[in-house]
């Protein structure tokens, strides 16, 4: 099979993996080598579904000895299969990289023969790139659960990021839909990475992907699971991926990919990571996120007794809980307070978004807005406009 055909099959098979982010890395270039990480993520193009393309995202092979129910590449599916050798992958990476098509390689794979056999081929690929081609660009590799510790460590040493997919949000779902996989093995791999990082002062980041909407877990279960992984530093990012119905025998809970739910989960995840919300807070009054309102606004409404807050007195952790105020604005406010009492004009000058926040704050001892009624109405209207097919057709604004 020629390389064009192989790439067609294997990039097509890899596309459902979501972590597009090339997240930026600080790797220095090799002397006489090629490539360097860039700190701010660079998108090289956008695919027809509107996603940033910055990596050569591809499977080494779509042959697989496993039979996960949600997967297109499972062994019971009758599909065209292909395999790329480590040298072919390395060459492709270099050729694309030096043409500035990509920021690096994201390699994943089906499992051939055994997890270890597959990982050894990955390692070979990484070694060709780093040692033979002195490639200093971004390298992200999937860890196959069940691979031996020493192989995982060798790969971690050469890669910028590794990931091990949890696939489904609970042990139970995994045992039903991916009977060959064990959650313990997946977590063990993540643990190996963490320990390796700690003892080698390396900061190789880890991520995972969860398929959303194929099984019955609530948003609360999903987010509190992410929280645990973040707390234990086992993961740096969790990617939520709306389930796409690829095999007809898996009972999908929704027929359309639940894109909106995916979006809300990312927002809630953001609150965990950057706003230091706890999952108990986010879900204090509910088990699933609100579809209509973003999680932060929803939380503020659920906990309206905590508001309004006095902009001139509130501490940082409360300021960032005000809808419309983020870490950046909160820091600016705190810095500016040192020079005197803040009024609405100051906030405007600092670029604080008042559209939402004014409903939740006190300035000069007075509430600015008495009721949140029109804010909620406006937000729901915004939502309807963005999501209703009629509005889309009319192009109404």
């Amino acid at each position, binding site marked *: 099979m020629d390389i*064009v055909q192989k*790439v067609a099959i294997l990039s097509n098979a890899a596309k459902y993996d979501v972590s597009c982010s090339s997240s930026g890395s600080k790797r220095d270039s090799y002397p006489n080598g090629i490539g*360097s990480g860039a700190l701010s993520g660079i998108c090289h*193009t956008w695919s027809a*579904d509107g*996603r940033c393309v910055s990596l050569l995202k591809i499977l080494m092979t779509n042959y697989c000895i496993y039979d996960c129910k949600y997967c297109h590449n499972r062994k019971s599916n009758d599909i065209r299969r292909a395999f790329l050798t480590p040298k072919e992958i390395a060459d492709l990476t270099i050729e694309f990289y030096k043409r500035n098509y990509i920021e690096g390689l994201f390699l994943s794979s089906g499992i051939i023969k055994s997890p270890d056999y597959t990982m050894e081929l990955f390692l070979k690929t990484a070694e060709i790139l780093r040692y033979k081609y002195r490639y200093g660009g971004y390298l992200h590799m999937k860890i196959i659960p069940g691979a031996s510790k020493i192989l995982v460590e060798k790969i971690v040493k050469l890669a910028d990021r590794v990931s091990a997919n949890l696939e489904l949000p609970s042990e139970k779902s995994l045992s039903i839909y991916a009977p060959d996989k064990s959650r313990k093995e997946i977590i063990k791999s993540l643990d190996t990475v963490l320990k390796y990082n700690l003892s080698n002062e390396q900061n190789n980041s880890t991520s995972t992907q969860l398929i959303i909407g194929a099984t019955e877990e609530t948003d609360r279960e999903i987010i509190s699971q992410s929280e645990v992984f973040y707390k234990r530093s086992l993961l740096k990012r969790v990617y939520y991926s709306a389930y796409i119905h690829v095999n007809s025998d898996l009972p999908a809970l929704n027929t359309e990919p639940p894109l909106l739910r995916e979006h809300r989960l990312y927002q809630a995840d953001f609150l965990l990571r950057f706003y230091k919300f706890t999952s108990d807070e986010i879900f204090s009054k509910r088990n699933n996120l609100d579809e209509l309102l973003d999680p932060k606004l929803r939380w503020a409404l659920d906990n309206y007794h905590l508001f309004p807050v006095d902009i001139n007195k509130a501490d940082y952790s409360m300021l960032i809980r005000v809808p419309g105020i983020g870490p950046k604005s909160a820091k600016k406010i705190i810095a500016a307070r040192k020079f005197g009492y803040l009024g609405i004009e100051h906030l405007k000058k600092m670029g604080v978004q008042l559209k939402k926040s004014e409903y939740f704050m006190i300035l000069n001892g007075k509430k600015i807005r008495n009721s949140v009624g029109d804010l909620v109405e406006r937000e729901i209207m915004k939502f309807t406009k963005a999501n209703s097919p009629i509005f889309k057709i009319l192009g109404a604004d």
Partner: protein
Amino acid sequence: MYQVFYDGTFNGLLTLYDYFDKGLEIETVVNRAIEKNFQPYIFQFEVETDRDIADSVTKKILLIGGEEVLKKIYLASLADSDKNEIIILDYIKLLFTDIELVSNLSIETVIEIEKCIKRVFFERHKMLGFIRFSELYDGTMVSFISPKYNVLSLLGGHFKRRFPDIRWAIFDKKRGMVGYYFRYSFEVSYYESIDELEYSANENKVRDVWKVFFDSIAIKERLSYERQVSKVPLRVREDMLEFGG
């Protein structure tokens, strides 16, 4: 009031400043490097770029404002398609009046300059991703771009770090400029025309693989051409082969 022409170079702009300073009344400024169609006006004035004059203005800027301010003026001047010459002339005048003025963010000119710089960096960042190199028979990598702003001189550092041991060149088709990198130095100059290029044996193959890759990665359940257009504006697509460029 005059319609003033200059060659689009930084030195040209500084030469123009000298006339402006001496009282030349300006109606509009035409940048010859990028403006081919303009409404002719009765009173026209051609600025001949003069190295000595430009140098003396540069020195004065350095003396009063220091390197930071000179850098700002240079960066802002790169936003050439925004017709921002007059703003820059005003800015230099402010500087020469009182250095305090150029850091006063309540002055319109000062705000405009900051905005220009932001836009220039935004364009640069986009170009870092959108640039496509092709391999010539001798291993040189070449790229053709038509950026909205004159960002060529700001691209060198990034690609120097990335491809320290490759010989490469980036052509700005819109301005007839070329940035050439060889043996650890990156230089920008002008070009008249380019001979027919001879590509490496591998080039077409790699392009084919890239196109196949690009076409096959989109998830069909999620197609969104609107989003794609908003991210990759049509104006840059002619230089990107995955869009048929």
